[in-house]
């Protein structure tokens, strides 16, 4: 009896480890490892760019990485990366099969600024365990915009783009209505909505978890419209004077959905396909942290009173002359 118990235990450990091993989330991490920071240029909005050099002028950079929490990130090295497929889509849907570049700051996804709008980068890994095929898709959307190119018909250019035939399972961030434009910054306290799509169709019942780099996470099941809405937490409490209005903190959204294959095409070795998709992003502390309209109203009302009193006093002298009119 004990023997059976012992076998069951090691199977679960094994599956757990397998699970753990298999289920470490893969995603395209937008920030580099600490020790390679000097090879990378940082922009005003803490966006990282590759230094101009071997691969031409400044480029976006994304490092494929693994790991459940955003703090201990395990950057993939050349071995694991070999098996995965990489895709890069520019805003006007040009598709390019991509291979990673080995830069000083590690294996990374490099692509040009190119056209105005969101560039999508994908990494797909497939694992087969028991009878389920795990398809891990890591997606990243990168905005490229220069104010010089003007701000004409912004809404059209920033619509999320999906590629159902190439990427079977995908997740998009719905644009904030109204008036999201190039200079949009997600503020903590705002709501952000993600829609999960399987071969272009909304998926009901997918698990969507939202984790921040303070390891706070929340999971929501998508409704019939395939969307899950999260409220971005505010987790930045600076002391007086050190507040950086534009302090960027990262979040990672993971959607998981398993599909049972119908029994007809039995030739495949697996009965279930488990899709997971990851989507990284940034958010900044909410303005209400340091901006208060309440005080503004007080200052206005007080100054209106003071100014009117001063003016009335200074006008009284002239009024005496004209008062008899």
């Amino acid at each position: 009896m004990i023997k059976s118990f012992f076998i069951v235990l090691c199977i679960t450990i094994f599956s757990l480890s397998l699970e753990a091993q298999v289920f470490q989330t893969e995603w395209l991490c937008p920030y580099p490892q600490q020790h390679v920071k000097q090879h990378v240029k940082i922009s005003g909005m803490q966006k990282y760019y590759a230094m101009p050099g071997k691969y031409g002028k400044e480029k976006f950079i994304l490092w494929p990485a693994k790991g459940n929490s955003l703090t201990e990130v395990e950057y993939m090295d050349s071995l694991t990366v070999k098996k995965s497929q990489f895709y890069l889509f520019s805003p006007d849907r040009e598709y390019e099969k991509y291979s990673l570049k080995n830069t000083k700051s590690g294996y990374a996804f490099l692509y040009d600024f190119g056209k105005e709008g969101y560039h999508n980068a994908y990494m797909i890994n497939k694992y087969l365990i028991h009878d389920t095929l795990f398809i891990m898709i890591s997606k990243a959307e990168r905005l490229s915009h220069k104010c010089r190119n003007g701000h004409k018909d912004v809404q059209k250019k920033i619509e999320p783009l999906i590629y159902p035939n190439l990427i079977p399972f995908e997740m998009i961030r719905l644009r904030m209505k109204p008036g999201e434009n190039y200079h949009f910054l997600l503020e903590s306290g705002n709501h952000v909505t993600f829609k999960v799509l399987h071969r272009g169709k909304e998926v009901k019942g997918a698990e969507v978890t939202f984790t921040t780099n303070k390891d706070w996470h929340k999971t929501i099941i998508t409704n019939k419209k395939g969307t899950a809405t999260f409220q971005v937490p505010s987790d930045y409490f600076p002391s007086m004077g050190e507040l950086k209005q534009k302090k960027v903190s990262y979040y990672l959204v993971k959607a998981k959905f398993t599909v049972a294959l119908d029994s007809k095409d039995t030739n495949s070795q697996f009965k279930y396909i488990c899709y997971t998709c990851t989507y990284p992003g940034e958010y900044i502390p909410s303005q209400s942290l340091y901006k208060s309209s309440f005080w503004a109203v007080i200052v206005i009302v007080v100054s209106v009173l003071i100014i009117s009193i001063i003016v009335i006093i200074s006008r009284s002298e002239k009024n005496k002359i004209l008062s008899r009119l």
Partner: protein
Amino acid sequence: MKKIRKYIDNSNLSLFRSIIQIIFFIILVYGGFKAISISEKIPTFACPYNVRTGGTCYLINIQHQLHSEWAGFITWRGISVLTALLTFIGLFIILNKSWCGFICPLGTIQDWLTKLRRLFGVRFSRYNKTSFKSLKVIKYIVLILLLVIPLGMSNSFFGLPKITEDMSAPYCQLCPARTVLPAATGDFTQFYIDFSSTTTIIMTTLAMIITALFFVGSFLKKRFFCFFCPMSALQFLFAKIGLLRLVKVGNKCTSCGNCSRVCDIGINAIADDLENKFIVKDDCMMCFKCVEACPENNCLKVKFTGLTIFRSTDEGFFKRFSKTKDYNITIDRKLSKND
């Protein structure tokens, strides 16, 4: 030709001006809804903080462009600063300072506040001569600060530490247009005090005080803010080469003082100055109310590239100011040869 000229000279220019003001108020404040944008370098207020703005005021441009190291000005940035300035001057020259009188949305708001005051019968205030002279200097000081601070932010002058980044676009933080124009589109987000650092606290509190001052001031004094506005100071540097000009023929003037009485800003020099022809003073906004109120023929003339397009006539004066409905007299003069 003479008939058209006579019709224009007798016309009610103030009515025409308020129509133009309304049109441009809609274009500049609500242009964004229809993605209209006149240009990024207009010589009048059209605040980019108002998401729906129909153009961008040149002041914010120049403050951003000056926010760069000295070396930057030799590279392409210097060229872009120059082209921005040239577009500003090009746009400005066409209408000279009547950008303020006819088009500036902030000016339009002030005129509406004046109409409101008139409704309640409250007496307008007016600066006496001494305070007029001393307050006149403020707008030049603001202009100089507006140009120097951005430079000071990116280069250290005489070894002094650089000015903090919180002061970016210093004038725009204090300008009432930043709070008033977005409010006109219903977006009140600009009314806030920013506690993130002492500089931002001071700047945003000052901004709120200036907004309060703006409302109280222009309710009581006609075109209160225009007297302190750095845009009018910047414009005046190029006013002399403007195509639209206000010209006064000195010896036709009887110094009756009508023009300085109807002048919203309260410029006395227009009545007292009999010498120089080009009579636009630095705080004049070329609204041409003085030309309407001048009873002398050909004393005040509005010229566009040398062609007189509007001039003061006694017939026009009486048509505008007197009412002849319950008298059987009409005010019109046969076109005589020596006109």
